[in-house]
């Protein structure tokens, strides 16, 4: 009886400990983001207040209104940056997906010599740090006259994304049984038709998540963009964020608002793909 009781106590203690641990972990994860959202809604006076104001007295969307009503808010053309970010991310994602589908299909369906080596080679191109890559690209782009253009950044991001899209899409095509396409071919489809009518639809959701992954990489990229862009012609949002930092002063509220604008598309898109992303990366890597 006594032993039973101690056991039950022990279990309850464990349960409570688990809940507390979980709560603390989640709080640490969420707090920074929530703090930014809150700060973007508060007036600057309150952010700067000493001693700190913990309970917000007045909340407003002023920072957002100022940001999107043209060049207000310290002269930062957020709309241009937003447009550049969208154009560059979407175009590079579409191209990287097309290339990744071709490459991933080749890896998943054909046997050829040096397969592992080629795959590893693709991955190694991804290890080159953005800033190291930016040096020669800067030079080449300057020669070609494509610095500060959408085109330059787009092809750079395509190259950045191809290794990952190949890896992910390879994993998704592997999950589609080979027999299906073969059956379709026996029924009179060409290989091309079999691909589009049988294999592609089955791998579609996976391919979509590879696309979102690529989009996020381009959307968030900073090291290359900060060197290869100059003006509102092609500056993207991550680079634009730096506009808020002057030598000694930082417009914290404006920066927070821009941060929220940047995170919302990323947030929505990641929620959509979370399941596929992990399964694609693991099936590509674990099953080889």
């Amino acid at each position, binding site marked *: 009886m006594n032993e039973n009781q101690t056991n039950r106590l022990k279990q309850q203690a464990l349960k409570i400990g688990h809940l507390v641990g*979980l709560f603390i972990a989640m709080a*640490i994860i969420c707090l920074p983001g929530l703090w930014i959202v809150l700060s973007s809604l508060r007036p600057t006076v309150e952010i700067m207040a000493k001693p700190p104001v913990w309970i917000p007295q007045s909340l407003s969307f002023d920072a957002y209104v100022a940001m999107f009503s043209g060049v207000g808010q310290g002269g930062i053309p957020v709309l241009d940056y937003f447009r550049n970010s969208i154009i560059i991310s979407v175009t590079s994602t579409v191209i990287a997906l097309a290339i990744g589908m071709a490459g991933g299909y*080749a890896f998943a369906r054909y046997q050829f010599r040096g397969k592992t080596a080629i795959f590893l080679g693709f991955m190694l*191109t991804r290890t080159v740090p953005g*800033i190291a890559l930016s040096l020669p690209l800067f*030079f080449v782009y300057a020669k070609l006259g494509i610095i500060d253009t959408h085109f330059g950044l787009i092809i750079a991001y395509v190259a950045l994304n*191809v290794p990952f899209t190949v890896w992910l899409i390879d994993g998704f095509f592997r999950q589609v049984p080979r027999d299906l396409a073969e059956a379709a071919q026996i029924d009179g489809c060409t290989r091309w038709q079999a691909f589009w009518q049988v294999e592609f639809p089955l791998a579609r959701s996976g391919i979509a998540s590879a696309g979102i992954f690529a989009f996020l990489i381009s959307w968030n990229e900073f090291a290359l963009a900060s060197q290869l862009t100059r003006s509102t012609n092609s500056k993207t949002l991550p680079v634009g964020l730096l506009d808020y930092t002057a030598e000694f002063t930082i417009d914290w509220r404006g920066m927070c608002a821009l941060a929220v604008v940047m995170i919302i598309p990323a947030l929505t898109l990641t929620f959509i793909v979370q399941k596929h992303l992990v*399964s694609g990366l693991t099936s590509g*890597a674990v099953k080889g």
Partner: protein
Amino acid sequence: MRGWKPAPHVLLLLPAFVVLAAVVVVPLLLSLYSSFTPFRLTRPDTIYTFIGFRNYQRLFADMEFWAAFGRTVLLLTIALNLEMVLGLFLALLVEKATRGQRLLRTIMMFPMMFSPILVGFQFKFMFNDNIGLVNNALQSLGLTDQAIPWLIDGKLAFTSILIAEVWSSTSVFAIFILAGLMAMPKEPLEAAKVDGCTPLQSFRYVTWPFIMPFAFIAMTIRSLDIARAYDIVKIMTDGGPAKRTEILWTLISRTAYSDARMGLANAMAYVAIFLSILFTVMFFRQLAKARQQIGAEW
């Protein structure tokens, strides 16, 4: 396939090859060449002067460079190990949860969506000595009455950067380890329990070997992107105060763009590239080993 047609896999892989060659390989060869010249952006014709290994000699004799190098390795080693351990704990916590697992998993992914530049900014904001959340909280709780100079003191700045880095990437590990935990069959665990294993033993000898490959996948993915620390450092301290948090990548960008010494910067860049490749190859090897252990075919 007829003889004169290229094999289909060659055709399919061709676009990927072309893009990677044009944007990565060829520029890198160019930068390899320019690391043997005294190339300065301000004087374009210096690219034709060949000076052999002088840049590298200069580099290897430069204490500042070695300090940045050591700091980078230190930062990455601590960060990756911490991320692995914390990610494991986080995954175990979430896996044990009986209710709301979907929600917990979603929250867990939260830091992954943050662009590194945003992570840097938000921690810069929170660690601000005057108006930051951390100092405000410490002062309101009465733990300290002065402003702790998180980003101004060299050691503290390094710690702050480390915290930002760990915050942003622990979830990568947590997600993959959680995927492993959820894919794990339950029978071996029950068998271990019946055979009288303590929870610790069954974790060590049953669970851990199974989830190891997943942890190494996360490691590999992380190692492909270790340079994201550049974004965080760039915005949090920009290598300051007095170069106390200068890492390889910030040093490269400063040498190349502020000092306009491209040749020297390219030499540094090659050291940074080899460092990244080293990390990646290390983890790929571990991944291959772990994969063999669970008996998956290559």
